[in-house]
């Protein structure tokens, strides 16, 4: 099917909205749009609003944003899921943020620590339990560098004073204990959780006495912010930066440590990958410590080269030369990857629906392979993300914010993309519809996709999914023969 033009796309949105009641239709219409590159006003869809009751949304909660995204990957701290056992247990180790270390000895990334609230804790309060728990943790895992208390919903509801407990426990164990008020009911999605987590880092990590003095600051120090090392993403980014002559002193927060976070206010430049989840702390460091920050994109060789040059422009000529050298070194390898896979993937259409940065960041990588993104949308982005997206997508691209299960299915049925990229909750629906699918949150248990090394894997994975012979076997044999008979008669 050829690509929809703008009017057809607009008509499709209207058609999909038809099933909703009047009020819901009005509300959802604001979240869906068609990109118009000729429109100078750059109007954005409405975003960061509460999802409608009754629709299938894919969003998470503030706890997911704080414990799952920002704090969870910090490997040498213990993150207590404070509240009932489920929130921590069902999100345990699901995000594949890789780290180096011995789990249970000096690293705790894939472990689940919870205060396991029972009825009596709700009735009488859980502060005593929390303080006992922190003591036990420190006894059982003496190599932890600190503890963070990630609140679940009941903590806010019963009014426990986790700040006071944290303060006294911190004195007892002689390590930082950081209270994070990320109760799930706050905000409309995980986005507020990111903000709360960033604020907790600002208030409790920076300027802590005795922290951040381990490394002598250098003139080429940078920190990677907002790379969660999914499938090793941060590692494949880091080597490029180091190769061009920069010194990466901190990784936030994939494979990150508390010491790295404390070191960050002394860097020369903050490199921001996930704008949505880490822009708050970048803005804070810019204001308080005068550290500039720059957004970069390490998906696909075009964007990588662009980003490396952009990063190098903040430093002297030796780094600029280094960047050119890195680009020149990997160019032939990337050309080989493109030569191999582009003929197999060219002209294919992709629809994306991911979290807070990939809906726009991976577009460049698809374009490098000759593929086209015909629809994209975010779970929890804000207006500034959509403004950035408008510059990256082509004319008549569908834009959908917090898309509902129904809308997404209808869009895919009508637009008929060759590939859908979204999360595990969407995966099996679309695969059963016969549409090739890649998980773009967890890289479908592959990865890394960042950096030059990642692009080769990305290209291979896309080819493997799209050109899999199974897609031609979607019709069962008994139906296939009927169709063949019909075709023969005709």
């Amino acid at each position: 099917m050829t690509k929809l033009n703008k009017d057809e796309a607009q008509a499709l949105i209207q058609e999909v909205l038809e099933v909703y009641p009047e009020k819901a239709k009005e509300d959802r219409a604001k979240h869906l749009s068609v990109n118009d590159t000729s429109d100078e006003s750059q109007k954005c869809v409405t975003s960061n609003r509460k999802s409608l009751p009754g629709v299938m949304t894919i969003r998470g909660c503030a706890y997911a944003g704080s414990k799952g995204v920002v704090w969870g990957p910090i490997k040498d701290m213990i993150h207590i899921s404070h509240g009932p056992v489920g929130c921590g247990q069902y999100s345990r180790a699901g995000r594949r943020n890789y780290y180096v270390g011995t789990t249970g000895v000096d690293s705790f990334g894939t472990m689940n620590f919870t205060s396991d609230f029972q009825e009596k804790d709700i009735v009488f309060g859980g502060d005593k339990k929390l303080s006992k728990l922190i003591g036990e943790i420190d006894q059982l895992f003496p190599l932890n560098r600190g503890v963070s208390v990630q609140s679940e919903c009941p903590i806010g509801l019963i009014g426990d004073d986790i700040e006071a407990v944290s303060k006294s426990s911190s004195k007892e164990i002689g390590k930082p204990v950081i209270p994070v008020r990320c109760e799930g009911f706050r905000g409309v999605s995980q986005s507020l959780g990111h903000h709360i987590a960033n604020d907790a880092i600002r208030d409790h990590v920076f300027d802590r006495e005795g922290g951040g003095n381990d490394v002598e600051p250098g003139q080429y120090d940078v920190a990677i912010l907002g790379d969660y090392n999914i499938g090793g993403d941060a590692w494949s980014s880091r080597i490029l930066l180091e190769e061009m002559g920069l010194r990466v002193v901190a990784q936030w927060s994939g494979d990150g440590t508390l010491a790295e976070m404390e070191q960050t206010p002394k860097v020369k430049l903050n490199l921001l990958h996930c704008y949505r989840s880490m822009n708050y702390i970048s803005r804070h460091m810019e204001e308080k410590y005068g550290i500039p920050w720059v957004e970069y994109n390490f998906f696909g060789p075009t964007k990588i080269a662009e980003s490396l040059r952009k990063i190098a422009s903040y430093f002297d000529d030796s780094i600029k030369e280094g960047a050119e050298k890195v680009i020149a070194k990997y160019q032939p390898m990337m050309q080989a990857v493109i030569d191999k896979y582009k003929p197999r993937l060219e002209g294919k259409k992709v629809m994306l629906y991911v979290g807070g940065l990939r809906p726009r960041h991976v577009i460049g990588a698809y374009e490098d392979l000759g593929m086209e993104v015909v629809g994209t949308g975010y779970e929890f982005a804000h207006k500034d993300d959509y403004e950035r997206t408008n510059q990256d997508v082509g004319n008549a691209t569908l834009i959908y914010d917090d898309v509902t299960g129904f809308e997404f299915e209808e869009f895919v049925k009508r637009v008929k993309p060759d590939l859908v990229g979204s999360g595990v909750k969407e995966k099996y629906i679309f695969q059963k519809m016969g549409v090739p699918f890649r998980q773009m949150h967890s890289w479908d248990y592959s990865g890394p996709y960042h950096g030059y090394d990642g692009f080769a894997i990305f290209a291979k994975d896309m080819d493997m999914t799209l050109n899999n012979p199974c897609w031609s076997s979607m019709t069962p044999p008994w139906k296939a023969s009927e169709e063949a008979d019909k075709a023969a008669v005709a």
Partner: protein
Amino acid sequence: MANIIISQAVDGGLTFYMPKKDLEEKVLSLEFTEADKWGGELKLASGQSYYIDPMAEPRLPKSLRARRMD
């Protein structure tokens, strides 16, 4: 009164950011821009306008208190 951050934009202009609402907007015009008198009415690309008490020109980015005018 709302807490806002004014920062330098890449294109040379100013950017308005309100953490509470996660609102990032371009600043179209600022009433006073002299070194010793900076602030006043702030017009945003979204059509809203805010007022900052005039002050000596700060080092940007800067957290400020602003009042909505409309």
